[in-house]
């Protein structure tokens, strides 16, 4: 039986592919923010920011909670570090494979 990964890496990579979403994450790294505060620097509508936040939430990168009538957003960095670790594992994997390819080619054919 295959264990289901807690972090959905495909959603994380997809979430990170957009510059507005990356900018939202950078802002949240400084601390929690309301949706209104997050929308302020961007010339986009509130529904548009909400759509971006949905993508980030589905990826597990952002947590939203309601305090009174305001929605507050918080960064969850664990999926990000998991994605980076995944990339680094693959980088090492490929480097080792290319080393092996080089040794094989150099064996003199």
């Amino acid at each position, binding site marked *: 039986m*295959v264990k*289901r*990964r807690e972090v959905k*890496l*495909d*959603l994380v*990579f*997809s979430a*990170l*592919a*957009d*510059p507005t979403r*990356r900018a939202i*994450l*950078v802002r*949240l*790294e400084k601390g929690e923010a309301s949706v209104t505060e997050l929308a302020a620097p961007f010339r986009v509508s509130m529904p548009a920011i909400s759509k971006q936040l949905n993508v980030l939430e589905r990826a597990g990168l952002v947590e939203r909670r309601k305090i009174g009538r305001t929605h507050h957003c918080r*960064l969850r*960095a664990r999926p*990000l*570090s998991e*994605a*980076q670790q*995944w*990339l680094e594992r*693959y*980088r090492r*994997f*490929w*480097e*080792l*494979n*290319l080393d*092996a*390819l*080089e*040794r*094989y*080619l*150099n064996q003199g*054919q």
Partner: protein
Amino acid sequence: MTAATGQGIRLELKREFAHSCEKVFAAITQPDRVMQWMGPPGVTNLDAVVDLRVGGSYRFTMRGANDGPVYKVAGKYQEIAPPHLLRFTWKWEHAPADEPPMEVVFQLSHTSTGCLLELTQTGFPTQEECDRHTHGWSGSFQRLSQLVKE
């Protein structure tokens, strides 16, 4: 170098070989040759099946170091232009069934000393990225990660 573009996060590696592109291309596509080198140190290659045509499949079976578990990786060839281009999907058979395959591209170009190989791996392409028409900001994923690290 890891770059974020409109097409998602990419892993990019480069290596120069003092061998012809033809020789390098043969080494990465002919199963009897692949069996002789593929895998990190300690890994034993048990089998390699290659149907080298667009839409054809490959499967590599290997055993981990010290009589370790058997791993299989498989995929389909999407683009083949010997000796310069090989594009294929890549997925470990032990990965979750609903996880999309990754895409790997090998680009080989002639140099004065031999062959430059550029490897690009795209992590988990989604339909959203395929539909995307604009290119996003190109930058370093690592920089962002460091910025948002807790």
